[in-house]
């Protein structure tokens, strides 16, 4: 801790996006980014990343393995707004358009050491059957304006009937993504 500068604490995140289970899809890639509070700032490493495209393994697990490394260091003055990693998985649909296959978010582990997190993935649901069809047909699935909204609570509360983005608008997929955080 430098005497001159303001005191901060550092959070070093090492890990990797290991694998995913998407029973219905193949050839997916994954993006990650971090969402953190106002008192946080990245100091080193990559805050965002986009992985390679991976195909399903040929064994019985049928896992999509990326093993895509994450390495970022944050500094902060306040545990409030602890970083969350937001993962979004994309892949081609029948027509070859890249569409989103799943969103997920998880807090960076609060304790040091090795952690393995498995995140359920979800996508926003079309608001009507017709839209579901057209979105499938046009290759434009509903997606978030910004993947970071999955890590933010705003707008999801049920108080305002019009504005509520209720859970009904999401579908949880039978898909999981495994993420591990490991110290160096």
């Amino acid at each position, binding site marked *: 801790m430098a005497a001159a500068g303001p005191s901060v604490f550092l959070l070093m995140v090492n890990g990797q996006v290991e694998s995913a289970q998407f*029973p219905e899809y193949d050839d997916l890639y994954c993006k990650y980014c971090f969402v953190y509070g106002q008192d946080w700032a990245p100091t080193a490493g990559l805050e965002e990343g986009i992985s390679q495209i991976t195909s399903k393994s040929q064994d019985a697990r049928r896992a999509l393995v990326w093993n895509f490394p994450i390495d970022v260091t944050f500094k902060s003055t306040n545990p409030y707004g602890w970083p969350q990693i937001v993962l979004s998985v994309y892949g081609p649909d029948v027509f070859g358009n890249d569409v989103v296959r799943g969103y997920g978010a998880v807090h960076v582990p609060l304790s040091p050491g090795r952690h393995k997190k498995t995140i359920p993935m979800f996508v926003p649901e079309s608001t009507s059957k017709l839209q579901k069809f057209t979105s499938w047909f046009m290759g*434009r699935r509903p997606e978030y304006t910004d993947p970071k909204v999955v890590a933010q609570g705003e707008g999801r509360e049920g108080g305002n009937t019009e504005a509520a983005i209720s859970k009904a608008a999401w579908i949880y997929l*039978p898909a999981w993504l495994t993420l591990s955080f490991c110290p160096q």
Partner: protein
Amino acid sequence: MKSKEEKVKIITKEFVGEGEDAEEERQKKPSKVPRPKRKKQLPAAGCEEMVSENSPVDDQQEPVQEASDTRLLGVTSRRGPRSLPPIPSASRTGFAEFSMRERMREKLQAARSKAESALLQDIPTPRPRRLRSPTEKESETEFGTELAREVQRTQQEHDSQGYSRVKFHDSVRKIKSKPPVPPGFPSAEEAYNFFTFNFDPEPEESEEKPKAKNRHGANQEEKEGEEEEPPVQEGVSKTGEEEWLDGKEAEDLLLGLDHAAEDFVAVRPAEYESVHVRLQKEKELLFVPSRRTVPTYKKLPENVQPRYLEDEGLYIGARPEVPRINQNIMENRLLTQEPGRRWFGDDGRILALPNPIKPVPSRPPTWTREQDVKAELETQYKKAVKYIHRSQHLIGSGDSPGNFQLDIDISGLIFTHHPCFSREHVLAAKLAQLYDQYLARRQRNKAKFLTDKLHALRNAVQVGLNPAKTPKTLETTPKTINEYKSEIRQTRKLRDAEEEKDRTLLKTIIKVWKEMKSLREFQRFTNTPLKLVLRKEKVDQKADEEAYEAEIQAEINELLEEHTEEYEQKMEVYRVTQQQWKAWKKAQRAKKKKKKQEVEEHSANEEREQPGPGEEPEKPAPPEPVDRAVIEQQVREKAAQSRRRPGEPTLIPELSLAGSVTPNDQCPRVEVMRREDVKRRSLFLKVTFNNKEVSRTESRPLGADFRVHFGQIFNLQIFNWPESLTLQIYETAGHSGTTLLAEVFLPIPETTVVSGRAPIEEVEFSSNQHVTLDHEGVGSGVPFSFEADGSNQLILMTSGKVSNSVAWAIGENGIPLIPPLSQQNIGFRSALKRADAISSIGTSGLTDMKKLAKWAAESKLDPNDPSNGPLMQLISVATSGESYIPGFFRLEQLQQEFNFVSDEELNRSKRFRLLLLRSQEVPEFRHYKQIPLYDREIMERVFQDYEKRLRDRNVIETKDHIDTHRATVAKCLQQVRESVINRFLIAKHHFLLSDLIVEEEVPNISILGLSLFKLAEQKRPLRPRRKGRKKVTAQNLSDGDIKLLVNIIRAYDIPVRKPTASKFHQTSRSSRTFAEKHAASPTTHSPAHSADYPLGQVSVRPFVEVSFQRTICHTTTAEGPNPSWNEELELPFRAPNGDYSTTSLQSVKDDVFINIFDEVLYDVLEDDRERGSGIHTRIERHWLGCVKIPFSTIYFQARIDGTFKIDIPPVLLGYSKEQSVMMERGFDSVRSLSEGSYITLFITLEPQLVPGESVREKFDSQEDEKLLQATEKFRAECTLKFPTRQCLTTVVDISGKTVFVTRYLKPLNPPQELLNAYPNNPQATAELVARYVSLIPFLPDTVSFAGVCDLWSTSDQFLDLLAGDEEEHAVLLCNYFLSMGKKAWLVTGNAIPEGPTAYVLTQEQSHYLIWNPCSGHFYGQFDTFCPLKSVSCLIGPDNFSGFPLHMPYSEMKPLIEAVYSTGVHNIDAPNVEFALAVYVHPYPKNVLSVWIYVASLIRNR
């Protein structure tokens, strides 16, 4: 120790420098000696200089001596480093040593080879290796610490010369410890001589030889003799040496040579620290707390006994479980820390809060995906679980849930009163009741019991009084006798009462029976079979009389005694009072005498002094003496009343049902009716268990004797502990339905009561129903009488008895189906933590304090447990009787415990305050990042601005503004803005689905059609259209992401230069009239100018400069008055404070200035001589005009595409319009119709930003609800028909209320000055008014109120504020026009630069005019753009390009910004001068017109 260690380290470092050479040396040594000898090295530290500087011979001597006293030196060396002599530099040692070493090596090798070759013929393994290990061990034991060794290690290299010697010496020592030298060996002396003749300087080496031989030659003694010689020869003649060397030796030699080759490579062993050493180091550096239990006395202050709060009755919660070992470690650690003891409580344990861990997790289980995916996706079948109602009452929760059974036997029902009772029945019931009573009394026979007791007592007293008779009687003291006597008295009284009751009862029975008999006779029929028989029992007359008399006598005696006692007591009292009275009397008499004497003098006081009549003690009357005769009389009277007379036969009543009931046909009609009625009635019972009906009996008819027999047993299978068991009695009268007569609560049986053993019990019930019947039945709840005259009325209620029995059933195996006892009582106690008071004593029990207290005592509640606190308090209050009930209750009584700091401290914390303010989104802190971690790092000044603003809220700051009015307005606006912003902040957090999720819209037919059409369209059209781009939400943007794209396409009609000598020209715009405008005729004077400019000559070289946020970009220079640039300029956009949120973007007030300049080249060459060699020109740019577009417009419009009129200053010296050219060409005639210059622009933002949504909030309104609904409906219809049109019905006024837009429009008189200006020209007046309105500063709502909420202020407010946007301007203008008698409307719509805006439409005689209220321009109905500028003109001095700026005055800043944008100051000509002239023209109501003239003057020669 530490300081020493450090020094040692320093020194070792210095040694290392020197040691490198030495190390090289070591490498040269044969690998047989991988590690140097330590003992030798120590001295070397002391004699280093000698090593390097002294002759080798001397040097060699030294170690020899030292070797003997190693131990001593080892000690000194440890202390030594402090007094070490200066260390010689490496270079110094290097050279001297080198040569010396070389020589030494040679010698050594030679010697060794000789010695070894001699020895090792029979020694297969290398010797020193074996020898070394013991030495090392020794050294370790000797020096112990690593420090010393380290020193040694570095030092060891310096005396490498002595290695061989050392080695040999060591081996000698080793050998010495071996078995003694075998006989027949050469003596040490011989050997010495043998070796030393060759090697003078190393006498010790020779020693080694024989020793070695001794050692190895144990089994080859015979050889020794012969072999002694050859080595000698060897030593002399080296030629034969090689022959004897075996392979091993050769290798050794080779190795030695090889190392010599590696002299320059420093190979060091890897630094290794042994585990021991490391541990030792760690032991010094690290503190490892012991795991042993710390004795309690260590943890407490001295001489303090541990104190256990729990024993003192204080509540201590359960401590969290921590393994003992961890506790010990922690305690040990704390003890070594300085203030460690404060961590220990009085009981010597570490302070701990109660265990906060809940037994049940409150977090939902997380998904762990260990098993296969399919396993989780699989549907699991789970059997439906029966919902158990009120689980706390559940019996056997946790245990095997058994079914328990309760048997309810309902045998029958008897009415003690029923509405259908006849009078006889009433009496019969009464009789039966009395008889029952009688029977019960007789069974108990209390009177007899008491009589016996009395006798016994009397006997006892008699015995007591005559001790002579029974001398053996134990202490019959007078006291006992007195007690007996008093008991006798009591018993006698009781007996008398009982006897009296018996007698009365008997009398009553007889009386009722008589009544009944008389009734039967009266009504001439019998209803009941009741019959009373009185049996007489004869008694012995004489004995009876005697007993009676004796009894009376005894009683008299006793009473007499009593009375005598009483009399004596009274006499005593009398005597005392008598004396007092006498004394008083005497005193009184004396007083009276006195008074008589003083009566004259003290007549006044007399009355006061005289005691009142009440004070005079009465003269006590002596008590009357006891008269025996009187007492006797009393006793006899009483006895006669209450007792059977002597000789009178004892009467025993017997009630039987032997009587016969009169048959129906002999009865009167009313009685028959009654009997019929009774027959019609039937009854049934419902059994309710815990307030739920579980079963009901059959309906049975009511018997004539008002008995119903059920005889049914109900088996209730239960699993809940019964709370209540009720029988409901229902009566059915014919077909008129059932009525609930009464409810009977049955007691829940004891656990010992099982079926078969349960006695039949009778439970009484009664009903309060009122029944009146029209026959003999007396009814219920209504008065009736037995008397003929109706007197002596009786009111009887329906009542009766249910005979039933409730018992627990017995199961198949003979076990009663009762919930186990433990679950009933103890069960609740043990399961206390779960069960609460309500479950065990029922809700009703809670109000019963005694019950509650009992329960608390039984359940052994911990009175000190805080969770039981309120209950305990309640109980203590209730039982003690002091009912203090606080007038409040606490919602979060535990809050205090969780406060880790006090509120004051929390408020004092700067960090907390900062966090709080940020979370409240206070503007100053909304985007504060990285709030410092510590309070001390937060600067005071962070809050200064905020505090200042709070302070200044009501103080009007005049410093920043020129006049106070503006300041007030600004302040007012600020406040309105703040309140509105606060409202919007709330709305900002509401998101629509579309805010978060991008979803394609469902295509409708038109879009589908369009897209189909698109397929057919050209891939690369000749005239491409601009396509919409994807919009970006402003969340994830940062500086530099947004760019402003300005595409400047072309301009029309740019003013052209006039020849410098042109005559002074004044525009004649002011003289233009309205009529002229609409004639749309070309200006008349243009042909005159055309002559001045020959065609083809470059008249103007315009270029465009775009400035935005003080960033300037410009196009290339084009030529001619109608230039075409078609260039795209890119300007970066920075949001204020780097905040790219929608709100922040909306409040950007910056404008985009598009300035058009004329580039003029001047030849500045002053000296003509240089003209040949170079051209010096000065580029001047002359401002021609500008277009100003606010950023907010761009932001909300997303793109601006169109042709704009250039705002050309009214006076543009040296320039004129080139209209003639246009005319002649006949090109674009429409455009030529208008005045002014135009520029075609396309402006957009890259990436396109999503403009903020308008606030979806309904403001309340004071308008009529019906009208509002009507407008809403109208609006909805309009929107449906014309979705693109903006239909405005209601607007939000400045106080945030919805009002109709029509409320704003009302004729309003314009200022009189304006009307007076052109008294007879209405057109001019209109223009003037428009101009006046346009001069009021423009301030868009979107800027003042972030978030698109159009606030409409009234004209009044508008004029007061002197700021507003299009609506306000339009409203004001419209109002003025209305008052001027014009037909005017407010027009809302879209305009090119402004976007949605408001204009004013007026109707003239034949046409309509559209007025732009913000600029004061008006346009004809059919005129596309025909603006008329109503500006006055001022003439400046000669010969300068300058230009006037004209704008409505509001604040200084926009003015400065406007001036800046012209870039006049960007002139670097040496002799430039600036001129500035400002003219402010006042209009009514503080509306000002400002004219600024900026000129740059360049002297023309």
